[in-house]
């Protein structure tokens, strides 16, 4: 096939993967050019879920922007809430009380677990292991119940506010959380035997979709994609926010850069999140959960940038204030968008069946890609 004489007459087929394809996890369309089973080129077509959120932020007051971040990364909306609230706090020079910071970290890590469980469930289904889908969603259900108990919603939490959090922990939350974490660790251990050790699963993932550390750095990859490629980069460690500098946790790094490495990073992250949550519960001080806020919040003219580690990678918000109650400009730096940009470079040369494995391992959320 590489013969130059035949390349002229080579017959390629263009195939649309998506936008209605269960494995694209949303409305993503991949325009794939195929030579037999091998991919020649790939062009991700995005924008099916575009809502113009950044413009919508400009028309609303600072507090009103928060529920819209729920609709960006809907698998981990609390991390989005936190990211934008940090930007607002930096603009207005606010500081959340210590207890609020601990609760924020606790909930973000709980949300990270929920998000990674969705990844585990859908990824296993993509590869063909439907059983794991059910087991992972069973655990996620407990996690969502806890989130519902705490925030009042199952997916779109809208729980973080500039200057703190709106409500304190409900009664019986700690017990429920401890039970869940025990169950989770057991389920993860079970999953290791069921899925991680499974021959077919490993065969499908090992050596597939290799991202070199240079490529990961060049494309601006972050989160599990970067850490699966051997880059030890985690915003929680490199630029600690909230109370992450006081908590002990490891950042899992794998060096093979393939789909398996990215999968393993996420599985290990769930264990680390459980560790962080236990520490938060132990160290959490009593006290206020909200700092004093003016009735009409008008931050001084200026700009602010916040960096947080969402389950997908580095989620940042850039905010400009012109002294009015509405932000002048908001921009979200979303990891899914960045990772999706790596696809055209990763896909050529792989078989069509591996597209799903590679796309799934990036764990993109389309709400975040399109905004």
């Amino acid at each position, binding site marked *: 096939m590489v013969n130059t004489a035949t390349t002229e007459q080579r017959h390629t087929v263009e195939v649309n993967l998506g936008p209605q394809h269960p494995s694209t996890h949303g409305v993503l369309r991949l325009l794939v050019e195929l030579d037999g089973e091998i991919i020649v080129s790939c062009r991700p077509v995005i924008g099916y879920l575009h809502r113009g959120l950044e413009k919508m932020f400009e028309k609303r007051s600072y507090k*009103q922007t928060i529920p819209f971040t729920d609709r960006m990364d809907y698998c981990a909306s609390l991390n989005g809430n936190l990211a934008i609230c940090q930007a607002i706090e930096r603009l207005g020079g606010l500081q959340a009380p210590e207890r609020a910071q601990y609760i924020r970290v606790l909930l973000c890590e709980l949300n990270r677990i929920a998000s990674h469980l969705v990844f585990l469930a859908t990824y296993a289904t993509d590869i063909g292991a439907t059983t794991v889908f059910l087991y992972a969603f069973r655990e996620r*259900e407990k996690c969502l119940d806890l989130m*519902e*108990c705490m925030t*009042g919603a199952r997916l779109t939490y*809208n729980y973080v506010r500039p200057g703190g959090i709106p*409500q304190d922990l*409900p009664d019986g939350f700690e017990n429920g959380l401890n039970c869940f974490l025990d169950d989770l660790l057991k389920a993860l251990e079970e999953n290791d035997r069921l*899925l991680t050790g499974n*021959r077919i699963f490993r065969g499908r993932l090992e050596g597939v979709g290799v991202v070199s550390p240079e490529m990961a750095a060049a494309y601006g990859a972050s989160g599990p994609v970067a850490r699966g490629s051997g880059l030890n980069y985690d915003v929680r460690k490199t630029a600690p926010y909230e109370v992450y500098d006081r908590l002990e946790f490891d950042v899992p790094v794998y060096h093979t850069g393939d789909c398996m490495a990215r999968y393993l990073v996420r599985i290990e992250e769930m264990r680390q999140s459980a560790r962080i949550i236990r520490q938060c519960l132990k160290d959490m001080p009593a006290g206020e959960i909200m700092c004093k806020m003016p009735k009409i919040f008008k931050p001084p003219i200026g700009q602010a940038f916040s960096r947080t580690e969402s389950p997908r990678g580095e989620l940042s918000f850039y905010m400009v204030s012109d002294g009015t109650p509405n932000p002048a400009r908001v921009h979200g730096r979303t990891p899914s968008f960045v990772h999706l940009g790596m696809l055209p470079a990763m896909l050529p040369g792989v078989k069509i069946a591996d597209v799903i494995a590679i796309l799934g391992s990036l764990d993109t959320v389309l709400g975040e890609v399109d905004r």
Partner: protein
Amino acid sequence: MNTIQDLFSGFMSFLRGMKITGANLGRDKTTVLYPYEKADVAPRYRGLFVLPFNEANGRLNCTGCTLCIQACPTNVITLTKLGAGKHGGIQDFQMDLGRCMFCNLCVEACPFEAIEMTTQFELASTDRNVCVFPLTSLAQGGAAAAEKNYNTISTALAAEAAEKAAKAAAAGESGGHGAAHAPKEGA
């Protein structure tokens, strides 16, 4: 030799998986058969709105201050005020839940605890007009409460107006010798 070993270890990995699936077969079920059974909803759950009826005062807590309207990111709420000042209230209060994100910002903005969220989540319908909730379905106690609210407030407003008129009349009558008091009453 390697191939046989490979085959064996691969086969074992399947057996391990089957064992786990088998063990899970004996577990309690975690799902509920939804329309027939219902799972418990957390007390903080953000569902359909309710405007609490204050039995002691015989009216809704809402004073028509519009803070919830200002807090809402998606313009869900429209209201018609009824009077103003001490006895001010609402004549109508309409929420278009087709636009609502259930973000809780209106509830947090309210200084009078006049709007709250219930755990009722079954709000789906095939008609958009059903999503528009008028005061009669939002008020705690329904249409009767809404009517009571209207009666209480309009009676109070009428009494206030009558009192004012009487005072004004009294001030007008005693205008001659009570000049020192007149500006005070006016203020």
